[in-house]
């Protein structure tokens, strides 16, 4: 097991960290550390996937060679920055002075992170979805060495492979229990969320709002089980926030990080169309800023990742190969757009399974949006609110379309609830931004 833990840390620190430094050299130190695991495991599993399609078998040796192939060039290229990063990190850690309230909050945060690791190291994979799909595919990939061997029916092709490949990395490096990966996603979310908040608001508020995020029951509970919802939430929410910060700070690297992270969501879960909303916002913002080249940059990093799985999946399932074809296949449903009865059913369903469980945080988010106008700081936070509203609209529209394609749509409220988890970081980030502006004002 120890080798698999070391290998995962190598992937994070040997691929994720230098890659994030290469793409955007400036940024909060803890945030940078936080992004290294999701980015590293995302890029590494993408490499595994592509090399396997080219005929390279999954073996411990091949995985190690792939790691060297991906990490050595970036490590050599970024040698100076990595050294500087660790020196800065050491000095910051040595000189940090925390107030009592910060120590208390960090203590509580530490308790939840440690608790998550205790449980994921203890429990084997046991949740239904993971046993039958994500982890099962990971075990088959490690046993047979080839992706196609894991697809017994269309059911096994229905979800992309990022988490399954991550599990196979653990099995191939001698580990027996891949659940700790989800604790790492949880820790990464906390570190990176703090880092991204810290870029615009004070340290105390950043720590406080990170705590508010990390104690949300679905977020904490998903760090204990191996489902795809937490990794998806990490990739998507951080991708959105990086995009917001790119616009706010005009750091080009953040746009690339955003494109990569949103791209990796499509390798984690394939059903949700949130990437489409984000891409729409990228186009609109680039048009408004008269910098169309930004759309090209974003597309250059996003679409190759999105398409490598989509084309493969569609070829196995015999579905349309292009995005246009995919959209066209849903146009029939749009003719039902005026079905008011269905709309009311969908709204009732969303209220029961999504808005009600969100509870106070959704109200706080709406109130924060209104409050941003009252304190005349709406310009500072308008983009992050806009993206969140667009994603909320997609949730509504997606559920409406889904209600025509799935007969049992009313019965799977739990799945809809899990799917809506991605909004927690966004609601909290939006609220924090407004309160931070008020704090400064």
């Amino acid at each position: 097991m120890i080798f698999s833990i070391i290998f995962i840390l190598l992937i994070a620190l040997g691929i994720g960290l230098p890659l994030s430094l290469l793409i955007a050299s400036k940024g909060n130190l803890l945030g940078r550390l936080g992004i290294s695991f999701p980015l590293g495991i995302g890029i590494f599993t993408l490499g595994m996937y592509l090399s396997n399609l080219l005929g390279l078998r999954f073996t411990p040796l091949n995985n190690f060679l792939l790691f060297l192939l991906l990490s050595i060039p970036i490590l050599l290229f970024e040698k100076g920055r990595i050294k500087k990063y660790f020196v800065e990190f050491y000095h910051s850690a040595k000189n940090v002075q925390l107030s009592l309230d910060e120590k208390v909050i960090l203590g509580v945060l530490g308790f939840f992170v440690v608790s998550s690791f205790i449980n994921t190291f203890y429990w084997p994979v046991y949740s239904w979805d993971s046993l039958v799909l994500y982890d099962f595919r990971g075990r088959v990939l490690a046993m047979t060495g080839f992706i196609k061997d894991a697809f017994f029916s269309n059911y096994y092709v229905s979800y992309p492979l990022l988490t399954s490949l991550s599990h196979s990395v653990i099995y191939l490096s001698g580990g027996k229990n891949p659940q700790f990966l989800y604790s790492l996603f949880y820790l990464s979310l906390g570190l990176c969320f703090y880092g991204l908040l810290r870029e615009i608001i004070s340290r105390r508020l950043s720590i406080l709002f990170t705590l508010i995020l990390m104690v949300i029951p679905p977020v904490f509970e998903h760090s204990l089980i191996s489902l795809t919802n937490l990794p998806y939430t990490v990739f998507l929410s951080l991708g959105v926030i990086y995009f917001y910060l790119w616009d706010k700070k005009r750091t080009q690297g953040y746009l690339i990080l955003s494109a990569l992270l949103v791209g990796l969501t499509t390798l984690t879960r394939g059903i949700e169309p949130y990437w489409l909303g984000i891409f729409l916002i990228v186009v609109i913002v680039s048009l408004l800023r008269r910098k169309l080249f930004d759309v090209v940059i974003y597309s250059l990093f996003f679409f190759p990742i999105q398409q490598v799985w989509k084309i493969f999946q569609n070829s196995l399932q015999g579905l349309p190969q292009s995005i246009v074809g995919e959209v066209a296949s849903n146009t029939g449903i749009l003719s039902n757009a005026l079905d008011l009865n269905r709309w009311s059913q969908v709204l009732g369903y969303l209220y029961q399974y999504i808005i009600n469980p969100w509870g106070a945080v959704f109200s706080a988010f709406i109130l924060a949006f209104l409050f941003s106008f009252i304190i005349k700081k709406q310009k500072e936070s308008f983009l992050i609110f806009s993206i969140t509203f667009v994603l909320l609209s997609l949730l509504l529209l997606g559920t409406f379309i889904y209600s025509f394609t799935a007969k049992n749509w009313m019965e799977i409220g739990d799945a809809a609830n899990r799917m809506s988890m991605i909004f927690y970081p966004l609601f909290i980030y939006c609220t924090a931004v407004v309160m931070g502006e008020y704090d400064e004002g």
Partner: protein
Amino acid sequence: MFRKYFLPLLIVLTFIFLVLDTFIYPGAVAKYLLIDSRFYFGLSLALVLFFVPSKKERDPKKYNLYDFIMSANVVLLIPLWTAYLIFVGIEAGHFTNYVLAAYHIHLDGLISIPLFSLSLFLTEKVKNSLPKVFLLKPKNLFYFVLVILTAYFSVRNLASSANTALNADLYVFLHPTSSYEEKMYYQWGDFYRYMVFVKNNTLENAKIVIPPEQEPWVARTGDIQLVRAFLYPRQLIQYNGISIPDLQSLGPGTYIMVSWGDRECAAADCHGWPKQTIVARKIIYKDKNSSDVIETKENFIYKKDDYKYVYGLIKL
């Protein structure tokens, strides 16, 4: 008036509401008084933050009742946490919901009481070093409501997640040497032992016929994806109907699961599968307390009413 009586009474009332939620059920206060007890929790904390000056700055005469309540809270803090942890320990040592069954205490409600006590204590301690945004007197209603909502949301989640974490951690600490089999049995019950039983008694290239995907097997032995997760790389065969259409075509050496069914079902004779006569080379039955074989019959004719055990395996 507000400082002298309202806030101390609100704190006491919050304790009472949290106790009611613990002994009736979490949400009982919300049902009968329309507002969740943890909203009072968040409101109390927000008011302490906004309206109570630090101990050095405040006039003791105006805050004597408040100070008394806070002193009583300090005295109660450790006993409340000790009591909570004892109940969590009892739960971890038995089974999920044991405390509810034996003592009529909802653990997910109980956590809120020591947590409220701790939050009051810490709020008093750290309020001077909090971001100034929390110490500003509310300039407008929007901001005040925003802070209350954020506090309520945080408190509600902190109580729920802390309860989950402490319960889970204590289970781990009380069962540190559990094997993989014991952990999976805890999660999946006897179905897991049956999967081990089948695995132990078949080769990896075996063909196994499993029950149909319908009640009462649909959630366990009739769920082909779930069974595959445990028995891979064995080849699984599943038919749509209740009966196996052509037994002869299956060939010698093929296995057929024997499963009573995992859920209740309405029809009187719905349990038990297979529901047809099968000439078996061998039939083995699983011990109800382990994954071992309890009975073996060779060259036996299996009949549809032959259900002595919950799980078994026929070899053609």
